[in-house]
């Protein structure tokens, strides 16, 4: 299916619809270096409402910018563009997308009805403080994923107390007792800290995590 193209500043973002249906949409966020799936993943088949998947900047069918400059916060604004288009959503993210899903759940707490955080590429991210990392200029590439996305988003700083800030925002603004569900098996430092926060639950599987936020009217 041809995706809807959303505008985020100078970027055109591809939003794919994987399933139609009544009720609250599920927004899927892919991992680092991935792109949106072309069909519904097995873990999402129980979701009764529409399912949409977003290609982040520099990934899939979205714009490949020149010169890099990526941050998790920019991807948060990508996800926010999808939110502006879809209205209230439940969000599920893989790897890097899990981190962005957490941020979206905190930043737009009244419009996100639960975030499920899953394993996937880019889950760990970078260091939790200053590093000795150097800087390199990469040759341009004309197809996704953007090498600068791979480089910069694999080392974006993720201090645990920054990540937990978004849990508190979600808890305060969402009206849910547990607005975040961790379905990831692997727990890098930011996710360990998140999982320890009040308002965060653990889901044995992604499907069970999604079931926590399914609209009863859909059932």
């Amino acid at each position, binding site marked *: 299916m041809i995706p809807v193209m959303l505008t985020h500043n100078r970027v055109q973002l591809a939003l794919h619809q994987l399933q139609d249906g009544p009720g609250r949409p599920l927004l899927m966020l892919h991992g680092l270096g991935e792109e949106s799936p072309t069909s519904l993943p097995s873990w999402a088949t129980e979701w009764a409402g529409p399912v949409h998947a977003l290609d982040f900047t520099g990934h899939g069918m979205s714009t490949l910018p020149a010169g*890099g400059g990526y941050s998790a916060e920019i991807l948060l*604004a990508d996800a926010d563009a999808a939110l502006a288009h879809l209205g209230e959503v439940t969000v599920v993210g893989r790897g890097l997308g899990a981190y962005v899903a957490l941020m979206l759940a905190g930043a737009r707490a009244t419009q996100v009805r639960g975030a499920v955080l899953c394993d996937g590429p880019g889950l760990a991210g970078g260091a939790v403080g200053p590093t000795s990392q150097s*800087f390199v200029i990469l040759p341009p590439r004309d197809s996704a994923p953007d090498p600068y996305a791979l480089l910069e988003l694999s080392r974006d*700083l993720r201090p645990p107390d920054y990540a937990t800030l978004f849990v508190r925002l979600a808890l305060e603004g969402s009206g849910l007792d547990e607005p975040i569900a961790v379905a990831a098996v692997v727990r890098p430092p930011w996710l360990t800290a998140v999982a320890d926060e009040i308002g965060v639950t653990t889901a044995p599987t992604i499907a069970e995590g999604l079931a926590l936020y399914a609209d009863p009217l859909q059932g």
Partner: protein
Amino acid sequence: MLDGTYPGAVSPHREYVLDAGGVGIAVHEWGPEAADPLFLVHGGFDFARTYDVFAPKLAAAGWRVVAWDQRGHGDSEHATLYSWDGDLRDAMAVMDSVTQRPAPVVGHSKGGALMINLADAQPFRFTHLVNLDGIPYKRAIPDMSEHERTRMVASEVTGWLDHRRSTATSKRKPGTLEELAARRGRMNPRLSPEWLCHLVSVGGFESDDGWRWKIDPSMRFGGFGPWRPEWTIARLPGLAMPFLGILGRVQEPMGWGTLPHQVTRYIPVDGRCEVLDDVGHFVHIEQPDLVAAMVLDFLGGAA
């Protein structure tokens, strides 16, 4: 009426656009092309031509002074994305295009902080490092409850996201040259109307409905993220190249708010930090002769 001319301001002798990985970076040079290069790095929401008075004084001493507009600033291209790493790569592209040898680097404000980072990561590029009121220190965190702090962050984050939703079509607010100068003056209260009008004349453009700043309207002062200012100052003590810091004692809105006593323990071995009394954040604009003399004395003349 002010027309933007300013005593002592000299237009660059050479101006060109460098392709830095697909982003057009505007480079401005003063002094003989064959002379040894010296790099000037501007601060956030500034542009290379804020050095129109300072740079010619260094060039007059025999240096090829090379400054550039950071992406989205001045005459450089409005990029799709902006980041600290992106600014550093653009700096590397400019430096590589000028010389393969180490050179002195002078950075102001955010430009100074960027160059502390680059000097730590790639010291081979530097013979000397001069920092003009550009040493970040811990933010002063207001005394407030956790709940209040959460609310404040929520407001910052949603404000930023709301801004991102509007940037595709946003333009900077137009006005007369004097109006833009007055707006800038609220952030730079110590700079003269004549200088601020000069800034508009080189950092703005005029269209049918008035003057606008050239800077990308998608850029926004402030913001949020995981970066903490103290992570930059922590790179300072280990620098091996000769280091000179020049701080203005008077605090201003666009400065880091760093106080001299906070910096002392971080100054590199054999480095030094001078503090200018009754001078604000723009030390090189308020005191161009003094600061140029300090820099030239520190460098000991062109190599």
